[in-house]
């Protein structure tokens, strides 16, 4: 994961002082890690042979773990690095879903169907 750059001091809660370029780069690194994770988790889910709802549950579990990891990475002070909690919780989750389904199907077919 790319090193996160602090977007600002976050001196006061009412006045967010954010450096927009750093914010964009932080969001971008979130997006990358999510995409990477969705591909990897898709392959893993396929190899383990998850079917039906289990696979999707697995995906969202992985994404929650990723959110936790991001939280730790941001040293539990979201406002220093991002403008809102949604960035960490949902940014890129649904974008990665399509990649997840593709790689899940691919791995599942190769391992279990043929």
């Amino acid at each position, binding site marked *: 994961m790319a090193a996160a750059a602090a977007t600002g001091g976050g001196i006061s809660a009412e006045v967010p002082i954010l450096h927009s370029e750093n914010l964009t780069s932080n969001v971008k690194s979130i997006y990358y890690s999510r995409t990477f994770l969705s591909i990897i988790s898709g392959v893993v889910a396929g190899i383990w042979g998850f079917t039906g709802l289990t696979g999707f549950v697995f995906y969202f579990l992985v994404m929650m773990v990723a959110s936790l990891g991001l939280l730790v990475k941001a040293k539990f002070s979201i406002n220093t690095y991002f403008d809102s909690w949604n960035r960490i919780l949902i940014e890129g989750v649904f974008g990665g879903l399509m990649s997840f*389904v593709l790689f899940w199907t691919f791995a599942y077919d190769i391992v279990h169907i043929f």
Partner: protein
Amino acid sequence: MAEELVLDTAIRDWVLVPLSVVMVLIGVLRYFVAKLMRSPSASPSPDPKHVKEGQVVIRARNLRTGAQFIPAKAFKSRKVYYTNEENGLLHVPKEEAQKAQAAMFSDPNMAMDMMKKNLSMIVPQTLTFAWVNFFFSGFVAAKIPFPLTQRFRGMLQNGIDLSTVDVSYVSSRSWYFLNLFGLRGLFSLILGEENATDDAQKMMQMGGGFGANPTMSLSAEKDSLDIIQHDWVLPKMEHHAEEVLRKLLKK
């Protein structure tokens, strides 16, 4: 409902894997072709007027983000400087806006660039689709690991006309479409951020007319400057400073 189909391993070796590999390779190829075709001199000498407008927008944006740090009077006078209806920097008269739009549409360079972009997007897609259609039509190529309702039959079993096969079996043509959408994430990982394969964004740009229209961004900036709520924070700053210093002392 339907019993399990037995799929030949030859289908995996000669349809499923090659199709995906080819899709990835074509994506990479398309990225580099688009990079080469992008006109080398994107804008050799940009129109000074455009540059000026862009700078004005940036200045106005800076004012907007820093608005809390200047007194109300200072903010107001700056705002009038940008947005007043007679000679504000961000104000664009109606006729002029239309003229600019017309000029934009008649600019041949612009149209040429758009054409190139679209061609690099459409041509490979049509070619791969034709290739898939020609060689792999009518295969059951894959099975998605989750059940779906009958509605998805048209989407997933494009090219097979059997109503008894379970819906989760995917025909090769539909596998192509799945790849088309699902590989976007992979491309953004292997090709870097500004990959040329992001079709959805392209579509959006096309829908919105000619992407970056300076007069439009001017008036958009004007609107957002108009609605901003000014609140001077510096009087409260001393309290914050005190808090911070006290915290430091406690440590």
